[in-house]
Every structure is written in C-alpha cells, then in structure tokens.
C-alpha cells in the first residue's frame, strides 16, 4: 500500500516536476523579451494619446480642424464631382480612382488616391470650397516622430521587420507553453486563488506571480494566441505557397483572390462614368453606414465597378468583434448591386471572419475607452507576471545555488540578475527616455524620428551596461531612482521646452495630454516608492542584497 502510494506520487510528481522544469526555463529565457513585448504592447493600447502628446505642434491644427468640421461645406455629391473632375483632368489613365469625400459627418477634408506609374499609392487633397487641388505639404512636420506607433511596431516586430516578427512569434509560442506548464505546476490554483502574503520574501514573489497570472489567465491566453493568429500567414506560409505559388507574385495573387473577388476585367469599350452621388447614397442605405470612400475600378470603361465603403465610427462598431466596415459594390453600367458586405462581415468566408475577429480581439478595436482601460490593466498584469517570474527565479536561488550550470553557476546567476535589472527597470527608463528625446531632439533635424529611436535603444543598452557593471541591488536602486526622476521631471521638461503643463491641458480639456502626464507621474511615484522600499528592506533585514523591486514599479515602469 505504502509502496503503491509512493510510486503513484512519484509518477505524479514526475510529471509535475517535468512541467515545473519546462515552466522555469521556458519562462526564464523568454521572460525578458516577453516583458518588453508586453509592456510596449500595453502602452500601444494608448497609441493615439501618446502620439498626441508627442506632436505638440499639431495641437493647434487639430483644434482648427475640429472647429472647421462644424462649419457647413460642400455637399457629398459636389465633393464627389470635384474628385472625379480632378482625376479625369490629371490622372485619367489610372486604373483605380479612390475618393474619400468627407468624414462621417459629411465635413472634413476631401482626398483622392490612385496608383502612379511606378505602382506607388499616392494622394492629393482638394479644397472643400472650390474643388481646386491644394498644394501638397511641402515639408515634413517640424517634430518628425514615430509617436505612439513606436510602441506598436516594437511590440510585434522589434523594429526589425520580418525577423523581429518571427522572434516575437516564437516568444508568444513560448508564452503559451509557459502558461500551460505554469497552470499544471501550480498545485493549489484554487486554494491560493486570492492569496497574497506580503513581506515574506520568496513566498510573496510567488504569490504575486500566481495572482496576476491566474486572475488574468483568460486575457493572457487570448492575447498571446490572437497575436500569433494575426501573423498566421507569415508563420504558416505553406497554404498560400501551394495554392498561389511562392514569393511576391504568389502573395499578390493571394491578396487579389482574398480581397478582390469578382473584380471585373476591362471590356475595352469606353463609357462615361455616371454621377457618383446616387451610388454613394444607395450604398449608404444598403450597408447602414456613412460613406468613407468611393472606389472606381476601370473608370471610363463599360465594365467599371463602383465600390462604396462605410465609416466605422458609429456606436454599432463598439459592439462588433470584427472591425471591418460595410461595403457595397455596383456595376457602373447597370447600377446593379454586385456585392454587399454588412459592417463586421468579411469577404473570404468563415476562416477570414475568424481571423478578423481574432485581430479585433487583439487590438481591442471594439468597446470604446472602457475596454481600452481593461486591456491596459490586464496588459500591466501580464507584464507583472513576466517580471515577478524572472525575479522569483533569482530570489529562489539566492539563499542556495542549485548548480544548474556547474562551475559557472554563480556567474550565470549574476548575468541573469543583470538581465532582470536591464529588462525590467532599464526598459522603463528607455520608454520614458523616448518621451524625453521627443522634447530634447531639436525639431527640424533630418531623420529626427530615427534620433528618437536611437535614444530609446541607446538608453536601454546603457541600462544593460550599467546593470552588468554594478552590484545587483545597487543597479536596481539606481535604475529605479533614475526612472522615478525622469518620470517626475517630465512635466517640467514639457513646460520648459514646449510651454505646456497639466493645468493648461486640463483647462482646455485636453485629456489625452493630461492622461499621458498623469500616468507618467503615477509611474514616477511608484518607482520612487519601490526604490525607497528596497533601501529600507535592506537596512532592516541586513541580509544580502536582493533584487526586490516592488510589483507596482515593474507594472508601471
């Protein structure tokens, strides 16, 4: 009996132990990269407010545009006629004309797009009072910046194109492995569901790691899985290659088959383009959305096709997981409806719809601000999960070496500790450094946006050098202190360089700028608090230096 129990226990323990081993190492080696992906991905939720804060010169322009959009301007039909007249006069040979007549309220700018002779997608803006072409913006904006887009791009391709995409994809796969093995390893998942025991060293780190992971588990699974699915065609190219051929021609053919089913071939018989307004109004009625764009394939040909696309800014878009807009296609010659897609629908069948929903789920295109904040919170919890896991690895091994790396164990632990500091506190410093660079790099500098990016990566690299050069406890404290200082001083820097401050932002109702600064201030306070907490913890315990940043600081760093 006793023997039977022992063997069954060992068998169970064996499986659990194998999963624990997998969780530890899979988690550790990917935790730094995943922390960076998660933190920047979390910031990417508020990409637009960050971009708004980083382009202060645009604020006046935006307000003017807002004021202008309330003034009545030319009607939809008039705008479409002007667009067609411009295209007929200047780009009659283009195979596709794309007119963006107005915003969802029928106001705003009037823009036309086409492919030039080099297959480049180009556009022109027309005056909404006369239909005359407006001079193109002759110089790039003074404060050229990637803005919040930096966080979006970094979190899925690390600014390294396809190579970066693959690296992040593999890391996301490793995260799924770590999630499953973590759930199996966690013996008391329900008993410890609400447990957090503060001030207990290793125990507290484990509790924190478990709590943020278990409580937000649905989100963590969803965000990693949908992240992989969005780029599924890159990660699993065989389907497209076997059906459409390899290389760019195959990719083009696939895109054409997916996005342009039933596109007519030009007949060769000329036919004047009919007035577009009636098509636009019918399309509007059929799909139930205001007109965003009218696209004419083969203009001037008898086989011309007119596509009417909808604006997705209605309240209904908040209630749809799939973020596609409505679309109605007409034959220009007969006026018959060739294709109708309702808002939220897709062209490519169930598989396409699934992918569209997964992409919507990942990018929280639905639900408005409340859901954005929810994603932000869950993203911070995910970042905290990576950070606490990486710190737990070292805290567990500090009292006694486990000797995983033979004679080099102490040195490897030292490297891991430095990587923790640089990946967690250092990334925080790099992110806030990016905002500092935005105010410090002089406007008008050539390739200014690259300089900002160089500051981000430069600061991060310096953080790693610093973490390697200093003892771990000192490195934590210094980087957390620097993070706190940079965060708390950012509003001052903004006031000195641009002359804007929280009071003015709140007075003019600029919640985007105020939100960015308030969050940065909160992060600074949290980082400063955890720096002090570390210093005190060390003096009270008198123990060996510990890499013990508080949960909040990593979460918000």
């Amino acid at each position, binding site marked *: 009996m006793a023997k039977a129990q022992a063997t069954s226990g060992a068998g169970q323990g064996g499986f659990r132990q194998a999963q624990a081993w997998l969780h530890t190492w899979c988690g550790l080696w990917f935790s730094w990269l995943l922390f960076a992906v998660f933190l920047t991905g979390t910031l990417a939720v508020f990409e637009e407010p960050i971009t708004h804060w980083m382009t202060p010169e645009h604020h006046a322009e935006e307000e003017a545009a807002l004021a202008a959009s309330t003034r009545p301007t030319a009607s939809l039909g008039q705008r479409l006629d002007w667009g067609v007249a411009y295209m007929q006069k200047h780009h009659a040979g283009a195979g596709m004309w794309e007119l963006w007549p107005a915003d969802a309220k029928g106001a705003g700018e009037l823009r036309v797009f086409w492919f030039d002779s080099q297959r480049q997608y180009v556009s022109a803006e027309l005056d909404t009072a006369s239909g005359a072409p407006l001079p193109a913006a002759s110089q790039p904006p003074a404060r050229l910046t990637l803005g919040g887009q930096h966080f979006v791009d970094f979190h899925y391709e690390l600014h390294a194109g396809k190579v970066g995409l693959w690296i992040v994809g593999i890391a996301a796969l490793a995260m799924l492995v770590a999630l499953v093995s973590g759930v199996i390893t966690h013996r008391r998942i329900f*008993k410890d*569901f*609400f*447990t*957090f*025991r*503060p001030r207990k060293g290793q125990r507290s780190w484990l509790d924190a790691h478990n*709590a*943020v992971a278990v*409580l*937000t588990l*649905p*989100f963590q699974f969803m965000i990693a899985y949908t992240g992989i699915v969005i780029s599924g065609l890159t990660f699993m190219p065989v389907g497209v290659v076997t059906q459409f051929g390899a290389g760019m021609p195959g990719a083009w053919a696939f895109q054409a088959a997916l996005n342009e089913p039933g596109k007519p071939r030009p007949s060769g018989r000329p036919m004047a383009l009919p007035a577009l307004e009636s098509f636009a109004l019918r399309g509007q009625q059929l799909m139930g959305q205001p007109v965003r764009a009218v696209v004419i394939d083969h203009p001037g040909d008898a086989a011309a096709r007119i596509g009417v696309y909808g604006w997705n800014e209605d309240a209904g878009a*908040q*209630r*749809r*997981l799939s973020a596609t807009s409505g679309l109605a296609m007409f034959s220009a010659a007969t006026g018959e409806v060739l294709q109708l897609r309702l808002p939220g629908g897709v062209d490519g069948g169930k598989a396409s719809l699934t992918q569209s929903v997964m992409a919507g*789920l990942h990018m929280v295109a*639905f*639900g*408005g*601000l*409340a*859901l954005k*904040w*929810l*994603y932000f*919170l*869950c993203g911070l*919890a995910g970042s905290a999960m990576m950070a606490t896991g990486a710190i737990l690895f070292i805290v567990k091994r500090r009292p006694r070496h486990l000797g995983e790396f033979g004679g080099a164990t102490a040195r490897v632990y030292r490297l891991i500790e430095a990587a923790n500091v640089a990946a967690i506190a250092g990334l925080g410093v790099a992110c806030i450094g990016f905002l500092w660079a935005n105010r410090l790099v002089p406007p008008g500098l050539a390739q200014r946006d690259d300089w900002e990016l160089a500051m981000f990566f430069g600061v991060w690299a310096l953080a790693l050098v610093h973490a390697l050069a200093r003892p771990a406890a000192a490195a934590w404290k210094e980087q957390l202190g620097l993070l706190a200082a940079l965060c708390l001083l950012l509003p001052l820097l903004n006031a000195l360089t641009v002359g804007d401050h929280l009071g003015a932002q709140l007075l003019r109702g600029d919640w985007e700028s105020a939100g960015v600064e308030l969050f940065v201030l909160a992060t600074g306070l949290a980082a400063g608090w955890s720096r002090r907490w570390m210093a005190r913890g060390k003096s009270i315990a008198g123990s060996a230096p510990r890499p013990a940043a508080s949960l909040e600081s990593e979460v918000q760093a």
Partner: protein
Amino acid sequence: MSEWLAGLLSLALAFAGMAALAFAMERHYEQLTGGRNRPPARALRCLGAALLLAALLPCVWGWGATVGCVAWLGFVSAGAIGCVAGINAAPRWAARAAWAFGPGALLALAWVCIAP
C-alpha cells in the same frame, strides 16, 4: 447604457462576487473575523456565483452579447485583482466595500431596467 456606467456596474458586481467567493474560504474568513469559526461557505459561494453572473448583465446591455462576453471576462479579472489587493491590505474594508458595491450596483441595474 453608456459604456462607463456598464463598466462600473460590472466591475462593482465582479468585485463583490469575488469577495464573496474569497470569504467563503476559511483562510480569508479568518482574515476578516480574526476568529476560528467556519464561514457560511455554501451561502457565500452561491452569492458570489450569482453576483459574477449578474456582472454579465451590464456588459451585454452595454456592448451586446459578443463584445459583452469579452468585457465580462475582463471585468471579472479586474474585480479579482482588486479583491486580492483589498483582502490582503484591509480585509474589513474589502468586505464593507463588497457589501456597498454589490447591492448598490444591483439597485442601479434595477433602476436602469425600470427607467426608460
């Protein structure tokens, strides 16, 4: 229903529900009462489950069935995180907050249903 109202109501109900589930466990009931008496576990679990289900209602009203379910999962997670923080920092206050949020949100929900 505005998204903010829906979100707040759902969050309040999720917090109250998670608190009820937590206090149904001996460890956390002890944190609350300081004594060794057993919690009314079954009643608290039923109450907690009911409150979590009730948190789905404002989500479905605010965002429809599909987005509502996604939002509900998120609010349940957020409520649970708030609950863990609250219970371990100040268990009595967490219980009081749950007592205020649960019935308060249910009343508000009933009001929204009845009022046009």
